[in-house]
């Protein structure tokens, strides 16, 4: 038995290869998919007979990613009349994909790292397990491909079988037990000779020499070149021509960001939750419920794609998320999407050793929270109107288990037929199965929540994110600063700290809270209670007060409250500051805190972004290399102050 790098290799004649594929098709136990011609191009598609198979292709329009993360994927079906008759999507069919090039196999391997981490994607996993991959060594190099530079033109793993064209016959390298059995059952093969093994190596070497497009620097250097040139004029220059069509991300084998949408039948009886490809070049990629858009400028979005490929994913997972297939370069009309061109242009410029500059030091691993995207059933227990725009909801989980959240964490609230929205938990941690959220009427989900009645069912996923580590606050003075709706998540922490069982663990407390106008102040009754607790100073301000409105407190922005802090009692080095408010507030408040002498590492903030999946997959909440749903929303200021996208 002859082996190549410890793998068994067989030989099959071209005629027998055709009969092998035909018998797979005839057998009908798997869906057989292979590379077929589509006009002048090629695509992966179901094979009707082996003669359709084109192993001599250069590249396919879309990568085989579509079989693992489909363009449109039904995550679950539900019935609107009985909203919690959730049916998880069950796809049982197994599939054999024939003709996958090595770079696409490596791309799938990268996808595994993201989708099969500590919070695995169950839908992806099932498809991965049910698929057999028959690869093929590249026979015709696409003129846009630079796979040889990326060392992705050959692969030793990730396939069940790998075909290599040896002029008149094919060598089949066996990569797995499944592959071995498939071959034994359906194909007529012979053992490979030493000469055949030499031929495989020669063929691969010859193909590697056919790549004319080359990256000038080693892929290990991508992160250092990119990080050093974050502010390089290239981003402005190239993005200036961008049509913002996101074709580059659609055809990319290592772009796996997605959106989740709700579809309802015309009779309003049935619905489904659908997952579909999204692209970070698109304008609304980061848009949140209140309409705010992060990375609003095309230059920032254009740059983000390259950083995600060459710095953000490499730093987190250890691979350069570009396999050099050349699809983006082919698909981009103004031809500005090709990473090879961009890196080559930057290669003459500086390098930076600090490739973790756009990350935070603490890494948080997500604990598995059950089947991804499937919510727990909960019941609306109580509604309390706080202002004309804000309402408090008490929600009880039907499985009677506590939410087990930390202050600062969020949940995904789902209403079937409407959608899902990330909302901070506003109540202190407790052992009861119920918790509270405060909601402002801004988007579809929140509007519908306002209309719901006590007893109605909704869905909850989470808690997600990194909450406050309450231990860090013990034996410290605490200065809470919140603006607007920021008081909602802050309340969870304040009530925990002021709880009579906990109060002694913390020193003096100062609470600063700013609202637009007196009518907008949330939790006025609770604030009065807070004021009564020993050593608590509570100061409120409103931006403006209409004539005739009853308001005896301070008027002005939140920063006007700082001179009121009783400084005599303060030991700023021993003070922890917590800031939660609208994006515009942070810059000014942090300046005040630093002036007070509070060290940067004692300042904690909570940032808002579009958290769609909550588990570090969908890509929407990224701030440079950081996932807000994973490492945030609570951050230590000293760790994110250098992230250019944090406080835009």
């Amino acid at each position, binding site marked *: 038995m002859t082996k190549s790098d410890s793998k068994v290799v067989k030989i099959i004649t071209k005629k027998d290869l055709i009969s092998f594929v035909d018998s797979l098709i005839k057998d009908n136990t798997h869906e057989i998919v292979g590379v077929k011609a589509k006009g002048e191009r090629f695509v992966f598609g179901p094979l009707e007979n082996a003669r359709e198979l084109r192993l001599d292709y250069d590249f396919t329009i879309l990568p085989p990613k579509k079989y693992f993360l489909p363009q449109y994927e039904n995550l679950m079906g539900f019935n609107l009349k009985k909203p919690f008759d959730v049916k998880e999507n069950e796809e049982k069919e197994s599939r054999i994909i024939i003709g996958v090039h090595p770079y696409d196999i490596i791309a799938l391997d990268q996808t595994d790292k993201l989708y099969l981490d500590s919070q695995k994607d169950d839908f992806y996993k099932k498809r991965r397990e049910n698929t057999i991959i028959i690869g093929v060594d590249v026979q015709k190099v696409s003129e846009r491909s630079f796979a040889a530079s990326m060392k992705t033109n050959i692969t030793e793993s990730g396939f069940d079988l790998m075909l290599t064209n040896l002029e008149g016959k094919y060598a089949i390298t066996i990569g797995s037990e499944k592959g071995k059995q498939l071959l034994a059952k359906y194909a007529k093969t012979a053992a490979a000779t030493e000469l055949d093994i030499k031929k495989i190596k020669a063929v691969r070497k010859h193909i590697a020499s056919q790549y004319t497009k080359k990256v000038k620097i080693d892929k290990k250097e991508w992160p250092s070149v990119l990080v050093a040139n974050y502010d390089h004029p290239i981003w402005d220059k190239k993005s200036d021509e961008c*049509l913002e069509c996101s074709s580059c991300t*659609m055809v990319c084998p290592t772009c796996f960001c997605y959106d989740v949408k709700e*579809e309802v*039948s015309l009779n309003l009886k049935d619905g489904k939750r659908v997952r579909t490809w999204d692209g970070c070049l698109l304008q609304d990629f980061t848009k949140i419920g209140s309409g705010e858009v992060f990375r609003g400028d095309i230059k920032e979005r254009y740059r983000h794609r390259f950083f995600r490929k060459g710095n953000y994913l490499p730093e987190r997972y250890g691979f350069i998320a570009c396999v050099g297939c050349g699809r983006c370069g082919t698909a981009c009309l103004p031809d500005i999407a090709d990473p090879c061109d961009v890196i080559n242009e930057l290669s003459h410029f500086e390098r930076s050793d600090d490739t973790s500059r756009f990350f935070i030091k603490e890494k948080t691993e997500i604990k598995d929270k059950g089947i991804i995207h499937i919510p727990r059933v909960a019941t609306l227990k109580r509604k309390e109107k706080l202002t004309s725009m804000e309402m408090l909801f008490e929600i009880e989980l039907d499985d009677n288990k506590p939410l087990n959240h930390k202050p600062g964490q969020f949940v995904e609230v789902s209403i079937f037929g409407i959608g899902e929205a990330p909302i901070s938990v506003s109540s202190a941690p407790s052992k009861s199965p119920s918790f509270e959220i405060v909601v402002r009427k801004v988007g579809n989900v929140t*509007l519908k929540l306002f209309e719901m009645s006590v007893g109605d069912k909704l869905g909850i996923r989470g808690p997600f994110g990194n909450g406050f580590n309450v231990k860090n606050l013990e034996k410290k003075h605490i200065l809470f600063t919140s603006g607007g709706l920021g008081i909602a998540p802050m309340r969870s922490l304040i009530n925990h700290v002021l709880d009579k069982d906990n109060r002694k663990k913390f020193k003096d407390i100062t609470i600063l809270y700013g609202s637009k106008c007196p009518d907008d102040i949330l939790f006025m009754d609770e604030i009065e209670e807070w004021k009564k607790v020993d050593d608590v100073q509570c100061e409120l301000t409103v931006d403006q007060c209409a004539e005739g409105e009853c308001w005896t407190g301070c008027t002005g922005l939140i920063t006007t409250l700082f001179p009121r802090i009783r400084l005599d009692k303060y030991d700023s080095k021993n003070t922890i500051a917590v800031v939660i408010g609208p994006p515009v507030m942070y810059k000014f408040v942090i300046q005040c805190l630093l002036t007070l002498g509070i060290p940067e590492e004692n300042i904690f903030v909570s940032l808002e972004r579009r958290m769609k999946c909550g588990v570090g997959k969908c890509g929407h909440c990224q701030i440079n290399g950081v996932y807000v749903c994973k490492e945030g929303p609570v951050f230590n200021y000293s760790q994110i102050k250098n992230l250019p996208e944090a406080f835009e």
Partner: protein
Amino acid sequence: MKPRVAFFDFSSCEGCQLQIANLEEEILDLIEIVDVVSFREVMKEHSDEYDIAIIEGSIMRPMDEKRLRKIRRNAKILVALGACATIGGINKIRNQWSAEEVKKEVYGDADIKDNEFFDAFQTKALNEVVPVDYYIHGCPINRDEFKQVITALALGKKPEIPNYPVCVECKKNENVCLFELGKFCLGPITRAGCNAICPTNGSPCDGCRGILKKPQIECVMDILEKYDLTYEEMKSRCTLYNTSSFNPKDGMTFVRRKSNE
């Protein structure tokens, strides 16, 4: 209570309403969730008591404006249906000329003075006269999108209209790019939502759902050159639905590149 819906039309071929009439059996589902109180194409009855007005067609004359304003006053929600209503569409081709020139060309010396039916001005989309709440784009509209919008409104939800170009859907359909086949396609700059129906069937996008982004003329010229396409072909494609977005009077004003000087 079911929302009451009324359909109206102005200058148009009424093909978008026909798309709705063509829902066939599904129309029974439609009338389960909304009360259709006026729909000239399929029923005799009419009522001015409605919550949602769905309007097809462009505004051409003062009498149209007056009628549209009345509908706007009656309706809680106003939806523009189809390209004529959403962007002016084909009716705007004639905006390349003045209203007087157009009337002269069409009616010659016929006496149309003091006849309000012929008192045409330059074509307007609905939102040039009254505020429009939601848009169902296309020529004709995509029935699936209509269903999504109407179910969203029945559920009390804001319908979501794609804010990204046709290329996104075209790529998902794994089409060979029409530029590679030597055709000028408006997909890269046109609003999606049609599931790229034209490119998928080999026809380049004509931009019937409206232009999302005006690209830089320099960039467009580079692309034309790369794919051996002519400026004339691009111009004719752009004027079919998007005359006002492109204003060919001054020879196609795309955005000029930012000058560094």
